[in-house]
């Protein structure tokens, strides 16, 4: 056969390989090939391929279609091809016969497999794929050590020194930042960008998918910065547009030229959920963030260092070399491909979705138990005719595996369709490649098969057990009850109810938290507040900012909608508040610290409850005075009067230049506001006059919605200083972002909870329908003896709902015991919130009662005489 000769379709060749042809293989194969070529020439490829396939199939089926002596060796070849084919056909026939229940069950299983596949895709992308550089085993994190601590951050100078002096590792520096990307009208916010040293891509052996990567020549000060974007960002957000190379885009307001796209597999030596979307040269960082200057004498830039061990050098040798080249000690840590904490998180996610899968499996098991109970006669007949028990089990497991695979195909489709939406909902960073890989496909196949087989094993064991004769003699399913499957069924129903109630209670809690967050009493109306900040070049003197802020305040106050303005280091919901630990009577108390101008209180609408506020004069002199919130006063002084007291900082006394709180006297107590973060909404606040190191922002209160005045305010402050970059923000923006947390959790648990509820309802319906049909005889006798429809209904519903109530109890207990775990994500809602519990319970009881009532009523409507005649 020459290499260029046309080849028949591979499926056909595989089938032919499977056929048992013995000595005649050579002859048969060349015959088929000859035919294939002749047909190819006469009728074309499609026809020839189709005919080749049917020929190969006919040969495959030949060896068992031909009548021969009865085979006695079935036990020795447990998985015969022909038997399996027959089993599959039989299974398909049975499945078609009970299409309604089967499709509900398969759909449930498919949804569960879909959810699991989505969860696994995310887990796979986040924590299972190895880090995205070639030869990851030689990547090390380079850490500074002191006698007391290990530090990940280096100054840029220290890094340069290290790089010049070591030879056993090649260190590279990186600096993470968040940026807003905009290009031709489209904007992507909070994008992860990394500033990296010039030889980063060479050291980590990156390759470009388009354009070029960064080199040392790019890593110099001045000029327009260049950038490399990640493959995932390019494909997902920029549509894989090849013209992107060479384009000038805006990154947080600065013009940047894209010079290349990194290869798909290269995401840098970082954890995968921190894979950046954009790489830029480190020396250029001040072109985008002018307050960050790596070369300034006292630089605010601190970089992380990661390196590659040169081949042949040991970790210990490299570590001691690096230590001698650095002012501090150095520790090298191998970057392991999979971090344990991430694995633990992934495991808990998979445990929760796995629970849902378990519920779906429970439904399949129930369906099959019902099936085998009804099919006892068929099974008994097969056993009597000489089938071995293992043969029967194989038949039943084939059936359930078919169910599993069917559901798996649908589930995988569901997963692929819903994955992008899930990523948007979870705000997965744009740098991550989430599309399914072989692991995901393998996972769904294995999960479907295991689900099918596990669901099928219990009922098939039940099916082949027991005594042949009675089964054969029975005319129907009546009375074929054994205690075992009934108990198993109840346990499964209870489990479904328990899991549903846990998920639904959490969903209710998170939705309540999301709603509560919106209507929370902040002490002011966030919609009426905005803040304006300025960033100036790093070498600008502090007075320039003060002057700029003062001029901005004057300009903004003249605007028609603006009511009040003030200055604060942390404007409302700026998300950067300082938690401070204070000591009082030996107790440690957490308060939030803000530094403000005197007018800030009036601007926010904070009222004085005792004492006084600090004055403009005191702010100008940075006098050692403080104002505390009522909550802080209560936390630390109880009913005592705090005015005139001083404060004591708890724990280590921190950074140099920080205000010494011991000198500070409290001059007043003011009303509580929630202006930091929702999750810390209940903490007390301490206000101090603005300090020298602060970069305050202008807080603006407007008469109506601040969003409507946004353009006016922006315009008013934009032309004040040509070098300044303006940051304008609405207080409600950050608030909304923060509320996303519980909203996302509510959506997730709600979806899972509804899915679990749906599974439970389908399961309950199926089981009750089956049990009712089994008990028709009994029901008829009761009715014949005078029981009313009401009595029968009560009996059937009571029996069916008993395991549900047990499950509900267990579920509620779990929620009460484990609720504290989620307390931090609930703002202003107790994890034992009665409303959430009642809602979840009511929904569950209503749904399951409905699921039981419909089949139970069918039993009552049956004519007892009719049934009794059949028995």
């Amino acid at each position: 056969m020459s290499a260029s000769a046309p080849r028949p379709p591979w499926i056909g060749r595989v089938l032919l390989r499977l056929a048992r042809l013995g000595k005649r293989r050579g002859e048969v194969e060349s015959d088929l090939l000859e035919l294939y070529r002749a047909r190819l020439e006469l009728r074309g490829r499609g026809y020839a391929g189709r005919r080749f396939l049917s020929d190969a199939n006919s040969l495959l089926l030949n060896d068992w279609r031909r009548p021969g002596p009865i085979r006695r060796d079935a036990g020795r070849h447990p998985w015969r091809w022909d038997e399996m084919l027959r089993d599959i056909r039989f299974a398909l026939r049975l499945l078609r016969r009970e299409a309604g229940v089967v499709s509900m069950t398969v759909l449930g299983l498919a949804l569960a497999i879909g959810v699991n596949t989505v969860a696994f895709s995310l887990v796979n992308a986040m924590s299972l794929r190895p880090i995205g550089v070639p030869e990851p085993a030689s990547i090390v994190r380079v850490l500074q050590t002191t006698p007391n601590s290990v530090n990940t951050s280096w100054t840029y100078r220290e890094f340069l020194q290290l790089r010049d002096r070591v030879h056993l590792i090649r260190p590279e520096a990186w600096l993470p930042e968040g940026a807003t990307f905009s290009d031709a009208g489209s904007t992507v916010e909070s994008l992860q960008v990394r500033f990296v040293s010039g030889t980063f891509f060479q050291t980590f052996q990156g390759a470009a998918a388009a354009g070029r990567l960064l080199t040392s020549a790019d890593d110099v000060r001045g000029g327009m910065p260049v950038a490399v974007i990640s493959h995932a960002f390019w494909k997902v957000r920029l549509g894989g547009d090849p013209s992107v190379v060479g384009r000038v885009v805006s990154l947080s307001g600065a013009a940047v030229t894209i010079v290349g796209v990194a290869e798909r597999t290269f995401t840098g030596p970082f954890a995968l959920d921190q894979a950046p979307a954009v790489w830029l040269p480190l020396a250029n960082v001040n072109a985008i963030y002018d307050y960050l200057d790596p070369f300034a004498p006292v630089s605010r830039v601190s970089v992380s260092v990661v390196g590659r061990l040169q081949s042949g050098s040991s970790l210990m040798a490299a570590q001691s070399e690096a230590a001698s080249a650095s002012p501090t000690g150095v520790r090298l840590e191998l970057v392991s491909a999979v971090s344990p904490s991430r694995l633990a998180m992934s495991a808990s996610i998979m445990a929760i979705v796995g629970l849902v899968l378990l519920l779906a499996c429970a439904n399949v098991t129930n369906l099959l138990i019902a099936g085998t109970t009804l099919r006892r006669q068929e099974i008994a007949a097969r056993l009597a005719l000489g089938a071995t028990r293992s043969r029967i089990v194989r038949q039943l497991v084939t059936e359930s595996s078919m169910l599993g695979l069917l559901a798996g195909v649908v589930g995988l489709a569901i997963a692929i369709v819903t994955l992008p939406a899930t990523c948007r909902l979870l705000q997965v960073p744009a740098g991550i490649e989430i599309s399914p890989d072989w692991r995901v496909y393998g996972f769904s196949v294995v999960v479907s098969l295991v689900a099918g087989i596990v669901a099928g094993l219990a009922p098939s064991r039940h099916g082949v057990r027991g005594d042949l004769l009675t089964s054969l003699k029975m005319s129907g399913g009546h009375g074929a009850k054994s205690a075992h499957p009934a108990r198993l069924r109840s346990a499964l129903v209870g489990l479904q109810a328990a899991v549903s109630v846990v998920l639904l209670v959490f969903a209710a809690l998170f939705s309540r938290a999301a709603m509560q967050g919106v209507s929370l009493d902040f002490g002011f109306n966030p919609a009426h507040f905005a803040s304006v900040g300025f960033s100036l070049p790093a070498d600008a003197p502090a007075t320039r900012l003060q002057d700029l802020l003062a001029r901005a305040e004057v300009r903004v106050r003249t605007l028609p909608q603006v009511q009040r303005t003030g200055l604060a280091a942390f404007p409302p919901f700026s998300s950067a508040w300082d938690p401070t630990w204070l000591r009082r009577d030996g107790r440690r108390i957490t308060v939030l610290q803000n530094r403000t101008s005197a007018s800030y209180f009036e601007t926010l609408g904070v009222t004085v409850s005792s004492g006084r506020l600090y004055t403009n004069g005191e702010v100008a002199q940075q006098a050692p005075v403080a104002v505390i919130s009522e909550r802080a006063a209560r936390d630390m002084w109880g009913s005592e009067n705090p005015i005139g007291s001083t404060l004591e900082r708890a724990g280590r006394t921190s950074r140099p230049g920080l205000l010494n709180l011991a000198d500070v006297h409290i001059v007043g107590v003011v009303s509580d506001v929630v202006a930091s973060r929702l999750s810390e909404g209940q903490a007390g606040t301490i206000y101090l006059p603005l300090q020298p190191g602060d970069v305050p922002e202008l807080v603006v209160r407007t008469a109506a919605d601040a969003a409507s005045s946004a353009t006016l305010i922006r315009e008013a402050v934009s032309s004040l200083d040509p070098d300044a970059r303006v940051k304008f923000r609405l207080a409600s923006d950050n608030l909304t972002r923060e509320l996303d947390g519980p909203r996302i959790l509510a959506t997730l648990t709600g979806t899972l909870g509804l899915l679990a509820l749906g599974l439970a309802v389908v399961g309950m319906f199926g089981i009750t329908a089956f049990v009712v049909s089994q008990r028709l005889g009994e029901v008829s006798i009761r009715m014949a003896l005078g029981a009313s429809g009401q009595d029968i209904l009560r009996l059937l519903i009571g029996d069916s709902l008993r395991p549900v109530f047990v499950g509900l109890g267990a579920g509620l207990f779990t929620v009460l015991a484990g609720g504290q775990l989620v307390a931090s994500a609930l703002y202003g809602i107790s994890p034992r919130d009665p409303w959430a519990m009642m809602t979840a319970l009511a929904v569950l009881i209503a749904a399951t009662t409905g699921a039981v009532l419909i089949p139970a009523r069918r039993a009552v409507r049956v004519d007892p005489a009719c049934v009794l005649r059949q028995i």
Partner: protein
Amino acid sequence: MKGDRLGEFEELTLLAVKALEPPVYGVPIQEFIEASTGRDVTMGAVYAALDRLEDKGFVRSEFGESTAERGGKAKRLFEVTPAGMRTLRDIRAARDRMWRAIEER
């Protein structure tokens, strides 16, 4: 005829072997049946029929020389035996009698 009845497909196969220029092998037999009857015929069916015909003694086969065009694989060449020929004639005689009866009505 006794137990050595022919199925319809076996009869077609036997006729094909006879009709073609001897010695013949699987591919031309399949093509001939397909061309004469106008229906798709699988090689599996052809091999099975040839095997049964050989079991019954109506055809015999021998391996021919291997040829380069078939990758050095030998063909099995079939030939109708006298017993096979006799059976074909018997069948034809029976059919002819019946057709004559139909036509003389």
